[in-house]
């Protein structure tokens, strides 16, 4: 087994991010960051808005200077790289939607070859090959001559990822690549990133707000919390309780079983539910939304519901009412409260 030290493609030790000020008056956003990423890992950066995800990624990408501590890329301090050297090691995808008219997919992806081509940007056969390879890696074969501003947001983001692939770098840094995308595109983009990391041995670092996809696909999470930055496999962070600290809202709680955040409801009433299968599960969800907690049959309850799919029977006090949908059941439960 190789030592971790050698494989640490991105390595931050006791690092601070923020903005350099005059003399010592730096504005530090986050300090004491000690995290790393190994070769071939997909790493998701997670945290609340404003906690410094973008600043962290921008510092790693070399767009802004680090304030304190060591930021190492492939063992060397970022600040010691020249622009061109860094461009051969690391490519970047921003959250911004590029809107340039008359720019074809091929031409945009070919910009990834910038650090390799001559002064006039002439593309050689090898460049053509790598550009085509990058375009097919994101599944956009046949789109080469479409104009970028005629594509959907999801397709456009894939083109930007293809551009970074054409740059042929060991590391890819993406700042919220799925921010503007719908659910299926979110999954697709993150899945593409996962494949690139595992198949092409690239180290990919991306920030996201989408916990479900991040948990499902990433090898490692960098969890940016109020007081610290934690790292580990998503499952480790869920088990050790670090996830609970992401959001500082008393209305949110992390459901460790489901692996997602839920809105905390003030449960006012308790119910017994009889039934089985998926209809039973969804009935319990619907009850939870309306402020009913489902308890064991041995405990006392305000109300009893018998689930027999497509028919819900509510026993309340002495009344017994039947409903044929959860919608009408919920409307009835709400009317009880008033």
């Amino acid at each position, binding site marked *: 087994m190789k030592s971790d030290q050698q494989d640490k493609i991105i390595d931050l030790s006791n690092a601070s991010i923020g903005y350099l000020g005059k003399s010592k008056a730096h504005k530090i956003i986050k300090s004491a960051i000690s995290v790393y990423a190994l070769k071939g890992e997909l790493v998701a950066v997670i945290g609340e808005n404003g906690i410094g995800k973008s600043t962290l990624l921008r510092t790693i990408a*070399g767009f802004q200077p680090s304030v304190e501590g060591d930021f190492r890329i492939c063992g060397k301090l970022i600040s010691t790289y020249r622009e061109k050297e860094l461009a051969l090691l690391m490519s970047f995808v921003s959250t911004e939607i590029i809107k340039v008219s008359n*720019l*074809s997919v091929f*031409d945009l992806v070919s910009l990834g070859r910038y*650090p390799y*081509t001559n002064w*006039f*940007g002439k593309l050689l056969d090898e460049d053509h090959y790598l550009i085509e390879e990058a375009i097919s890696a994101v599944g956009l074969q046949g789109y080469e*001559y479409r104009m970028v501003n005629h594509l959907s947001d999801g397709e456009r983001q894939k083109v930007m990822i293809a551009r970074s692939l054409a740059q042929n770098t060991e590391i890819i840094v993406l700042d919220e690549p799925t921010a503007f995308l719908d659910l299926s595109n979110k999954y697709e983009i993150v899945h593409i990133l996962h494949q690139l990391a595992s198949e092409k041995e690239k180290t990919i670092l991306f920030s996201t707000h989408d916990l479900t996809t991040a948990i499902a696909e990433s090898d490692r999470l960098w969890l940016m919390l109020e007081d610290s930055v934690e790292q580990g496999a998503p499952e480790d962070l869920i088990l050790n309780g670090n996830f609970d600290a992401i959001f500082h809202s008393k209305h949110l709680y992390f459901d460790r079983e489901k692996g997602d955040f839920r809105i905390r409801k003030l449960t006012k009433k308790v119910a017994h539910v009889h039934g089985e299968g998926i209809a039973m599960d969804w009935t319990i969800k619907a009850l939870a939304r309306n402020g009913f907690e489902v308890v064991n049959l041995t405990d006392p309850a305000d109300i009893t519901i018998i689930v027999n799919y497509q028919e819900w029977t509510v026993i309340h006090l002495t009344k017994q009412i039947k409903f044929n949908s959860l919608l009408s059941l919920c409307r009835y439960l709400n009317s009880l409260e008033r």
Partner: protein
Amino acid sequence: MADNVLSITKQNTRGYRVILVFAFLVPLFFLLDLLVGSYYIPISEILKAIFRSDSANHQVVLIINQFRIPKAVTAILSGAALSVAGLQMQTVFRNPLAGPYILGVSSGASLGVALLVLGTGGLLGGSLISVAGSWGIVAAAWLGSGLILLLIVIISARIKDIMTILILGLLISSAISSVVNILQYFSNESMLKSFVVWTMGSLGSVTNVQLAVLFPSVLTGILMAFLSSKFLDAFLLGENYARSMGMNIVFARMVVFLSTAILAGSITAFCGPIGFIGIAVPHIARMTLRTAKHSLLVPGTILIGALMMLVSDILSQLPGSEATLPVNSVTALLGIPIVIWIIIRNKNTARL
């Protein structure tokens, strides 16, 4: 892979074809421009004057060589220069309404001219202008725009954010314009008129001797634009992307700004400020060539700019009359409808 290379060539053939068409139209309109003037000369006489000057009418040769050819060449140079400068500014600032004067180059030139015409003119009397001749105005304008260029280079080396540079450029232009306004306010009527005439722009006042200076300047600027076409491609995605691709932003910006200032500064010095060509032509180039690659856009913009300016010059020559319209008004009347059309067609001004 051979197939790919083939189809890529196919994609760009449209661009090359359009460039070829314009490369044919420019000499055609150059000849047309020689035809029109206050004095009618048949085309056979013109061709004779150009190619067999010893057998042609002496007076015709004089008119063609001393007036019409320098004017038509100036039209080509100014159209090409302003359009390329406009293209560079639109790309670097990622703003479709940017133009060659956005950095304040023309206001610097006008300050130079205003100081000469209105300032010293007021002290030494109107005779100075005729004595110093047009060279005086050229030198003053060049000095003014050179000063602004220096300021911009200093600013752009220190300031990272491109939008800040744009805003500073606009503020500097406004400040200089108000100084020019003050100078205008305190000058007498004849001074004022000669200054206002300069601001209207003119292609006809450039002599053959001056062309010998203007031509190499424009050529230098255009050569720099060709050399920076890879930088410009990278600027399309914004400076963060450009930097992440290994571009030295400060150096690239400097090359582009220097080229723009040389192009816009020289033309303004010799012809006065000429508007709208520099904003409209890059859009026409993008639309007709259907590409965003600057290796095609730069030559395309040069040709279309030259053509537009030749057309403007032909239109400014009122048929059957000795009078000519100020070229600045013609370019505005020609350019503004194009810009309006672009805005309405795109329905989205926030993109190039």
